[in-house]
């Protein structure tokens, strides 16, 4: 698309039937061909991305070769497991239930997180609920600094800006959740000689919305090239249950309900989809702006934020760096790759 073309939401429309067949063939080729595994293991959260990935795997490999893991923990919303089970049931794949709370308790996940929150909210107790939030990006040029929101047992709330130490403490503690889930997925992958399927969409993959060696780890990522809007198009075509398609995307990481918008992206995903597409295709901010009902300046701000997040994501995507190339017959790893 050139800078002079008329930009619209239609830019993200895809031929769902064709795309599903293309992805299914890629999954078959990766699992049975390249990796020579007997099936797929996938963590099903009840969200749109994992539901679509599970549906694609069931279609590509056969439902009997797909295992869905339901892995709630103490802070998971109660409906998470229900929606995950609903997605699995609709596909006819088998599920395994693993409550990961005891592992997280043993690792000190909750204790470490609570200590970090108490650094900025001294009255915080384990009976409180919490989440961390970012201010809206569109309001102005202010740095987007995380705050913690705490709900006390009596229902009152407080909000405090995080310090560097408290932010990193909360982040490092809660990242145990994604890493424990991935550990469990690889346990079943080893047990079943299966491949682990990662579920990031393009926004998450591009912008680094994942935990390194947590949900960022996988053997294949079949929807990483799709904008979130396109994932919803595939969901409809694949018959993902309405209840899942109508849920707002959440992080399901903090005890207070937290949208992906307030945790990371700062703008609705359909807006960000269009801005990311525009930036990727050289469309001027002024041309994208009317489509997303924002000013050119606001779209420019989103463009700058996308670029800044990409810089942070470079480390998250980076494999281990080597001092020199290691050459083996038929296999070359590049230093610095």
């Amino acid at each position, binding site marked *: 698309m050139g800078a002079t073309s008329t930009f619209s939401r239609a830019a993200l429309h895809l031929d769902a039937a064709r795309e599903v067949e293309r992805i299914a063939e890629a999954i078959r080729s990766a699992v049975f061909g390249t990796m020579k595994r007997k099936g797929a293991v996938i963590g099903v959260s009840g969200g749109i991305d994992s539901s679509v990935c599970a549906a694609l795997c069931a279609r590509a490999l056969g439902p009997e070769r797909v295992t869905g893991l339901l892995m709630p923990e103490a802070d998971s919303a109660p409906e998470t497991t229900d929606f995950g089970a609903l997605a699995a049931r609709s596909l006819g794949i088998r599920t395994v239930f693993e409550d990961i709370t005891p592992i997280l308790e043993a690792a000190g996940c909750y204790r470490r997180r609570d200590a970090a929150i108490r650094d900025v909210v001294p009255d915080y107790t384990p009976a409180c609920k919490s989440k961390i939030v970012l201010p809206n990006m569109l309001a102005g*040029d*202010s*740095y*987007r*600094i*995380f705050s913690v929101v705490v709900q006390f047992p009596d229902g009152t709330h407080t909000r405090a*800006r*995080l*310090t*560097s*130490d408290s*932010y*990193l403490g909360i982040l490092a503690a809660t990242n145990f959740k994604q890493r424990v889930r991935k550990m469990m997925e690889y346990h079943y992958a080893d047990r079943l000689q299966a491949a682990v399927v990662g579920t990031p969409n393009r926004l998450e993959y591009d912008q680094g919305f994942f935990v390194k060696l947590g949900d960022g780890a996988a053997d294949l990522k079949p929807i990483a090239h799709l904008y979130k809007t396109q994932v919803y198009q595939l969901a409809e075509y694949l018959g993902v249950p309405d209840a899942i398609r109508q849920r707002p995307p959440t992080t399901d990481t903090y005890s207070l309900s937290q949208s992906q918008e307030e945790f990371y992206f700062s703008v609705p995903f359909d807006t960000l989809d269009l801005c990311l597409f525009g930036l990727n295709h050289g469309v001027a901010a002024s041309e994208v702006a009317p489509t997303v009902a924002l000013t050119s300046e606001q779209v420019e701000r989103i463009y700058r934020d996308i670029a*800044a997040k990409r*810089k*942070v994501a470079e480390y998250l995507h980076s494999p281990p760096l080597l001092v020199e190339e290691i050459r083996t017959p038929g296999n070359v790893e590049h230093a610095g790759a």
Partner: protein
Amino acid sequence: MVLVPEIREFIVANFLFGRAEHALEDDESFLASGIIDSTGVLELIGFLEKQYGITVENAELLPDNLDSVSKVASFVRRKLGD
């Protein structure tokens, strides 16, 4: 008060790891040059509050105040003169 050298020393020690190959200009944008990311801004705020005994308000979290050695020094000077 030797604000500019102190702030420069903090930036070089914490974000450039003391490496000499990056000659930090006083007016160089931290964000544009990739020296400081959003977590780095938190570290910078913590340093300023501790070192100079000031409180950085939410409304002051702006690139105009914090995005270069010169801007940070001017901001601290204004805060101390308040």
